[in-house]
């Protein structure tokens, strides 16, 4: 057990539970969260101890609910935080940074949550893990389970991109396609976890799993010189990443690792074809209307019934952020713009984030004086279908110098 983990507590009613494989409160069915011995953490953990740790998210082990497991850690996290001057110039944001999550072992931020969840799964003695996934989580669970010698059961909705399917199946996982949406697959995974006692990372191990998301905020602060940014833009699927990014900065301060109390504005990015959180934000309500049939090329964000949707709304509203929902055309345009200006090829979800950044900058929600961090959560090679004919050779020519001179676009 991680030396600072105390147990689990209900986010709604505060009921306490031991640190076992359990995700909901018996009393109110509210979500459970990991609790830590903050007092001891403050007195024992310093910036220096963290900076001396491994070049992975496990440098933050004292703030995580598991101990680094060499069988599980594939070098997850500790991705580059890049100054994005050329993209920032497009939006009038001179202090724009990008957190490049494509650099994770399976090329998305999901390696963070899985690294933590599977380390905990092994501590708790599970031999079978699993998830319901829109693709990136499937890749991450399959790869980490393979490396750790665990069995993996992975449920995905029908119709995912070929790259996401191949980079799950290749690791030998039991990859099951469910004839339905992500929410259908997710409901089935909840019933399967309950029935078969498997460690579904985003169901039975959810309190541990979500803690992995906080490391993206920890790293951001460390990479900014142990300072929190002013504004972050985070893609929203279930809403778990957005809520933990906000909380991650506060936790770091509570642990005594940030001098200044963070005051981070948190904004969310969704696709118009599946934007239940953006829609509730617009309507000014906490009642999230689930989307039965998501219709967007941003399949990794196509969760119609976001588990942490209400908490994401609260984080955005209490921090004076905003949520936008962008069209498929804007997504593809933003993927191209990011690649052309920064040399970074993101999947559709990253396009959603960059398009939202543009929208919020134009609307004046994100201000030029703010230090802004946008989270580029996954890589473009996984969603090639979504780009159609958009990114293609300019011409096909015969191998002759004259033909090349003629074909050049400038």
């Amino acid at each position, binding site marked *: 057990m991680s030396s600072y983990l105390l147990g689990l507590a209900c986010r*709604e009613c505060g009921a306490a539970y031991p640190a076992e494989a359990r*995700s*909901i409160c*018996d*009393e*109110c*069915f*509210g*979500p459970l969260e990991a609790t830590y011995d903050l007092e001891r953490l403050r007195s024992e953990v310093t910036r220096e101890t963290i900076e001396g740790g491994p070049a992975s998210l496990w440098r933050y082990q004292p703030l995580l609910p598991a101990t680094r497991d060499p069988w599980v850690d594939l070098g997850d996290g500790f991705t580059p935080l890049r100054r994005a001057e050329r993209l920032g110039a497009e939006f009038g944001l001179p202090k724009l940074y990008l957190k490049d999550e494509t650099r994770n072992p399976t090329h998305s931020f*999901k390696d963070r*949550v899985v690294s933590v969840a599977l380390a905990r799964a092994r501590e708790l003695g599970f031999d079978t893990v699993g998830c*319901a*996934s*829109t*693709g*990136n*989580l499937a890749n991450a669970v399959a790869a980490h389970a393979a490396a750790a010698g665990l069995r993996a059961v992975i449920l995905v909705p029908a119709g995912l991109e070929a790259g996401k399917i191949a980079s799950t199946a290749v690791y030998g996982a039991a990859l099951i396609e469910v004839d339905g949406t*992500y*929410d*259908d697959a*997710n*409901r089935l*995974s*909840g*019933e399967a976890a*309950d029935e078969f006692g498997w460690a579904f990372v*985003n*169901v039975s191990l*959810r309190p541990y*799993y*979500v803690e992995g998301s906080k490391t993206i905020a920890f790293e951001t602060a460390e990479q900014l010189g142990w300072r929190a940014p002013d504004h972050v833009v985070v893609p929203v*699927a*279930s*809403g*778990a*990443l957005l809520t933990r990014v906000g909380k991650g900065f506060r936790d770091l301060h509570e642990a005594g690792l940030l001098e200044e109390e963070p005051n981070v504005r948190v904004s969310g990015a969704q696709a118009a074809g599946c934007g239940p959180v953006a829609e509730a934000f617009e309507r000014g309500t906490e009642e999230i*209307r*689930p989307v*039965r049939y998501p219709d967007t090329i941003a399949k*990794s*964000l196509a*969760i119609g*019934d976001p*588990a*942490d949707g*209400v908490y994401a709304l609260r984080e955005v509203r209490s921090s004076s952020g905003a949520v936008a929902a962008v069209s498929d055309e804007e997504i593809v345009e933003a993927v191209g713009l990011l690649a052309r200006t920064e040399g970074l090829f993101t999947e559709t979800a990253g396009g959603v984030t960059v398009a939202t950044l543009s929208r919020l900058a134009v609307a004046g929600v994100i201000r030029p004086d703010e230090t802004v961090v946008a989270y580029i959560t996954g890589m473009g090679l996984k969603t090639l279908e979504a780009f159609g004919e958009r990114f293609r050779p300019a011409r096909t020519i015969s191998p002759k110098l004259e033909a090349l001179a003629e074909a050049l676009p400038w």
Partner: protein
Amino acid sequence: MVTVRLHSAMRNLVGGSPRVEVQGATVREALEHLAGRHEDLARRLFDRDGGIRRFVNVFVEDEDIRHRDGLDTEVEDGQTISVLPAVAGGG
């Protein structure tokens, strides 16, 4: 009769059985019928206004009742109502 299938966290409230047979022509009638026999279950399922609590999802034949008529969703003899915790999943 319709069948109500409960998540394991709720089973001990109805005597440990994962499936319970109840009467009712709508989800509301069926769940109220069940809750009427088990007071502890009632306060976990329903909020003060008689609606389903935020952290509970209800399905009829695998379809979320929020995509149908909510608690007024009709149920037929032999159909199954599933009650599951709402907070699960993520990408």
